[in-house]
């Protein structure tokens, strides 16, 4: 209610200003003054305002720095983060110097050289020396900025070392899931067509393929019998027919995938990524050891998301259909950061930073950074609950792919998975 009152007061205020201006206009018209003749008083007023604005502007900036400087992100908790923070400060100093000088000149001149009948402006169409100077000077400064920037960029984006820990971050509307390799040290292959209640990431193993095929067969049978026996509206029939066709296509593609998998296993033996999935740890927790390089493999199930860990100064989009990666070395454990920030409930946060739908604003997962021993203990505990309990399953029969064109499509998925190894 009080807000409404404020609104009303402001509206009335504006109307009053308009009416005052109108009265002023009428009186000045009576005095024979034309609207386009800017009076000496008006010029002086605006010139003074230019001078007044400058300290207010800088003052506002300083106030923000003083009042909110300590509410910005705390010290970077990753190796590359320390570098980019330094680079950011370096850039800031250059920019603030330029900002202050150009603004002082702009507002000073605007206020000083106000119109006077007795004066003429200085005739100065160009000055080649000056113009050359302020083309070369920014170019030189930018060269420095570019060189420092690209150096840092190159080191951040260089490939991760082969002994980096691998963790997959999997995004979907509206949560994150992490996947750690099991005892075999490698992540298994995935395919989105295998996603179901028990396999949220679509990990490919012989069991998950067989299970999904059986599930699809059952769904197809149910829908077929509904189409054959139930009395349905035409639109519903169309919908179900389309659905069942899609299921059949899906089934065929999974059969193709199975062929691909068997061929790959036959060719590579134990190195095949299709044999590495069963012991993967799929978990809604995100833990990392301190001072160890980690390579994050980022994937999405549905739309584009972005994995953003502000305290680590790390961000990478999660794009459906491809795996993106970043590497980083956390340098401060969660506990140490709690001391640094004097906040005993502090947590590192992984949040989504690409618009992804209604609950985009609450798609988060805490990140826990611990010393190596604590991490190993957590990891050992987590590995007790692998994606599939180890059991010898009979190999399903290999069938020939009915649609040979489907093979290259699926092979890209495999290629991506292999690349990430």
């Amino acid at each position: 209610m009080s807000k409404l009152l404020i609104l009303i007061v402001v509206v009335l205020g504006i109307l009053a200003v308009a009416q005052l201006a109108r009265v002023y206009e009428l009186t000045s018209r009576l005095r024979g003054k034309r609207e386009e003749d800017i009076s000496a008083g008006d010029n002086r007023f605006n010139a003074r305002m230019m001078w007044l604005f400058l300290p207010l502007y800088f003052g506002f900036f300083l106030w923000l720095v003083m009042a909110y400087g300590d509410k910005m992100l705390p010290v970077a908790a990753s190796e590359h983060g320390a570098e980019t923070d330094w680079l950011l400060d370096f850039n800031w100093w250059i920019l603030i110097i330029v900002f202050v000088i150009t603004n002082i000149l702009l507002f000073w001149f605007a206020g000083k050289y106000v119109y006077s009948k007795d004066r003429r402006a200085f005739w100065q169409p160009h000055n080649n020396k000056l113009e050359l100077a302020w083309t070369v000077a920014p170019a030189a400064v930018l060269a420095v900025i570019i060189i420092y920037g690209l150096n840092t960029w190159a080191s951040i984006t260089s490939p991760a070392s082969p002994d980096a820990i691998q963790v997959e971050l999997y995004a979907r509307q509206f949560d994150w899931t992490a996947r750690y390799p099991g005892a075999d040290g490698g992540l298994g292959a995935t395919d989105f067509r295998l996603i179901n209640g028990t396999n949220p990431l679509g990990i490919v193993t012989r069991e998950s393929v067989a299970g999904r095929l059986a599930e699809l067969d059952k769904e197809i049978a149910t829908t077929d019998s509904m189409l054959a026996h139930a009395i349905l509206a035409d639109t519903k029939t169309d919908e179900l027919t389309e659905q069942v066709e899609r299921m059949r296509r899906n089934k065929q593609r999974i059969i193709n995938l199975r062929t691909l998998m068997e061929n790959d296993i036959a060719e590579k033996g134990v190195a095949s990524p299709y044999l590495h999935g069963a012991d993967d740890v799929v978990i809604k927790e995100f833990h990392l050891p301190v001072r160890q390089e980690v390579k994050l493999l980022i994937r999405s199930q549905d739309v584009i998301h972005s994995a953003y860990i502000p305290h680590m100064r790390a961000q990478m989009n999660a794009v459906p259909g491809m795996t993106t990666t970043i590497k980083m070395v956390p340098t401060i454990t969660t506990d140490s950061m709690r001391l640094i920030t004097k906040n005993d409930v502090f947590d590192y946060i992984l949040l989504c930073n690409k618009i992804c739908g209604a609950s985009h604003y609450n798609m988060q997962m805490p990140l826990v950074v611990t010393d190596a021993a604590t991490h190993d203990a957590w990891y050992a505990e987590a590995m007790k609950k692998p994606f599939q309990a180890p059991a010898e399953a009979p190999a399903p029969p290999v069938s020939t792919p009915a649609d040979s064109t489907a093979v290259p499509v699926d092979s890209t998925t495999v290629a991506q998975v292999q690349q990430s190894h």
Partner: protein
Amino acid sequence: MGATAHVHAAGHEHEAHHHEESFVSKYIFSHDHKMISKQFLVTAIVMAWVAVIMSLLFRLQLAWPGESFAFSSFFLGEKWAPGGVLDPNMYLALVTIHGTIMVFFVLTGGLSGTFANLLIPLQLGARDMASGFINMLSYWFFFLSSVVMLASLFVEGGPASAGWTVYPPLSALPQAMPGSGAGMTLWLVSMTLFIASSLMGGLNYVATVLNLRTKGMKMTRMPLTMWAIFLTAVIGILSFPVLLSAALLLLLDRSLGTSFYLSDIYIAGEALDNTGGSPILFQHLFWFLGHPEVYIVILPAFGITSEIISTNARKPIFGYRAMIGSLIAIAFLSFIVWGHHMFVTGMNPFLGSVFVFTTLLIAIPSAVKVFNYITTLWRGNIVFTPAMLFSTGLVATFIAGGLTGIILADSALDINIHDTYFVIAHFHIVMGMSAIFGMFAGIYHWFPKMYGKMMNTKLGYAHFWITFVCAFGVFFPMHFIGLAGAPRRYYSYSEFPMFDGVVDLNILVTVFAIIGALAQVIFTYNFFYSVWRGPKAVQNPWKSNTLEWTTPVEHLHGNWPGPLPVVYRWPYDYSKPGKAEDWVSQITPLEHGEEEH
């Protein structure tokens, strides 16, 4: 809507004249560039108000999340603001349509459409545009596209909500969010119409500038407004078709089951058929227009400002040729920097480095322009018309917004501020302030030419100072919110304790936004009041050199009653030594032995 208001506006003004044209051919399907320019302007003002009200709706939610507002219920009703609290889906829809309207309908259609149409024939000495008919079509496509965009606000699932960049798969799949249903289809239809309008306009502008300049109007004697508008049109012609192709492919993906942008998607309990497409392809196509687009927005504002600063400082624009050179450099570079919007999409790091390099190069011509503006003020004789205030404001805001662009262009730094409020602060200061200030400056400066009336100066001052202070109050704190890591397009920050320290800045921002929006009431009132009741203008109120001020105050079809003017000099002979007046019109022949400049 816009056209109706406009018809009344123009109706009063022209009562005294007896043209043979009918009402329809004169006020509605007019071929006359001056009328088309007014049509663009009034439509843009209406659209701008829609976008401003949207921004207030989401600013209220950001400042006081979860609180109930009568303002929200009034505009959104029970469905989208149950109990006066904004719905999260509607929040995303509002930010999407606010961005779309401001970028395309106000700052592209409104800014270029108004000033290119008004000024090209008048400043170059032409009777009209190269093709009056295509020019008329350009407006009516723009009008239709505005109508379709507004209509999309009223469909079942709400308007497009995937952000103004409409990245698929979010925008491609109705399962992903309600706004990706019919609302998104209408968005694409509207943009298709808009692009057609923009291309018809652009081709016309380029053809006119190249072919219809009057005798003596060499390219190197054109006012900088003309250079800016000409280059803007060239950029538009080369980049908008790419957006059209992006939009058409998205339409195909949405409606015909193709897979240009879709691959390996499991959504709403279903694995989709699509494989082999890439969402990143859309981003490349989108930003191939999207980045030149920001120059389509800012170049005309630069052109307008150059003209106004020189006229009102009573001093030639400093470094005319350098100003043209930097415009050309910016126009060229604008095509090879789009990847800086995509540093964290997983693009090849080397490619990222190339985009860092090209993007930072743009800072050089931009810096040259700023230094030249400041030098033009130095030892000038400055008359503070409202237009001059807004032009000075443009320079100030361009300094602030341009400098943060250097940080964003640095890929290593972009990693941590990408898609945070820092980005919002940056592009609102350059587009929401600089470009809008250029547009306001243009309106105040050329209002006498458009309507034959004067706007009230005092109200202009109030409008400028309140807007100027509020704009900084709104956008400056956003840098700090962004540096605290707060992402954009979040409905609320209450789920994250880490942002508790900066959320109260959101209240400050919203209060400034409300006051700033109210200041636009002053402008709108001043504009429409002056159209009808403003004091009558004289032919050349600002003592300006350019050709448009040699035409009579009353509009004629064909602009000049007699033969076309002949141009003898550049447009910036202000305070030239040896002249009695502090201005010399372009149509004044050079005296014997006088150097051009």
